[in-house]
């Protein structure tokens, strides 16, 4: 029955967070933004390009053993504005929510201005104010309008 077990692990988690309705192809960026890279030992499952009525194609990410806070998930609105968040306890959905656009994102994006102090070896996180049509570095005023995923801090 190992096949069934595997099926079960992908579709259901006991405790943790399910992020649904991620724009197709953005699942790995979602993991990068959340700083989930598998090194902590949590089970993480990713389903990509699933058929979706609302989005055409969607990705789904399930993180076992970790309940993400609203602050943590709001950052996802930059790349997955339609994402929904389900907090799971003992296989049941105990909380459902959406991502909301934060006013500021910290330590998530890298400033594209190589002469910006936040790109140096200084004890400071990048900080971007979130506007209607882009994000603006609060240190050097550089604006990122397109292709936010390309600016996600690699760590």
């Amino acid at each position, binding site marked *: 029955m190992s096949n069934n077990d595997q099926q079960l692990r992908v579709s259901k988690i006991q405790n943790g967070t399910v992020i649904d309705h991620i724009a197709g192809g953005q699942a790995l960026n979602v993991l990068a933004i959340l700083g989930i890279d598998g090194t902590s030992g949590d089970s993480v499952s990713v389903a990509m390009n699933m058929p979706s009525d609302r989005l055409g194609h969607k990705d789904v990410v399930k993180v076992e053993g970790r309940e993400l806070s609203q602050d943590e998930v709001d950052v996802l609105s930059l790349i997955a504005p339609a994402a929904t968040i389900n907090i799971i306890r003992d296989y049941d959905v105990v909380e459902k929510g959406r991502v909301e656009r934060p006013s500021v994102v910290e330590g998530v994006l890298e400033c594209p201005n190589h002469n910006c102090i936040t790109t140096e070896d*200084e004890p*400071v996180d990048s900080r971007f104010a979130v506007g209607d049509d882009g994000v603006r570095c609060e240190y050097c*005023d550089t604006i990122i309008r397109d292709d936010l995923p390309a600016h996600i801090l690699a760590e």
Partner: protein
Amino acid sequence: MRHDHIISAKQLSRGDIETVLDRAADIAADPGAFADRHSDTLLGLLFFEPSTRTKMSFTTAMKRLGGDIVDMGSVESSSVKKGESLADTVRVVEGYTDALVLRHPMEGSAKMASEFVDVPLVNAGDGAGQHPTQTLLDLYTIRENAGFDDLTIGIMGDLKYGRTVHSLAHALTTVDASQHFISPESLQLPRSVRYDLHEAGAGVREHTELDEILPELDVLYVTRIQAERFPDESEYREVAGQYQIDAATLEAAKDDLTVMHPLPRVDEIAHDVDETTHAQYFQQAHNGVPVRMALLDLMLGGDQ
């Protein structure tokens, strides 16, 4: 006015600007009254790139208020050379001084540094970013010569890369000036600046020739066009030549036109302009002292 740090001219409201300029005018009118105002104050100068003029201006301002300065010296001779972070440097030096002045080649450096210190910090230029005391002394010079009411100003030269221009243009939106920008097409205001000016409700009028607008101007602010912005020397000469002025050019201007320049100039303003009543660029440079005195006085609690 209550600001712990002066990082950007954008943080200053019309009221803040008037407060600083009023105090500068008081100081210029009676410097003696301020001579002992801050006799126990030590100002720390952290210049991570050379800018002799700005450093001298701050030094003069602090000494004219009765205080003194401590200078980090050149980067080559300091612990920065050994790889110390800026955050560490400012945390050490704030313990020696009552206020800090920082000049640094990277954008955002002053804002970051200010987050690590409790003493007031003044940004004296962060890379291509902000230089608020230059903006304040420009505003002071404009107010003294032309006033802020019904002001028509032309800003000419390299409008693409000049941070002085961007900061001044933004500050002028608070006084409702009519702004005209005169430059070659390749050196027009960047999109982000134009966007900011529109957001602030300012009309942006662009010209490629000074003649189009010169007779209407109360102030002409000239900046340098640098050769390295052009692919070759001959193109630079041809283009830059169209944005140089001399006494003959100014015959078409109003009698009370004020000509400004952040200095140093090269050949964008001919020396024969110096002899005319229009020339205010040396006075503009001198105004840096009372304006910086005013700012330091207000930051150091000169009202108490």
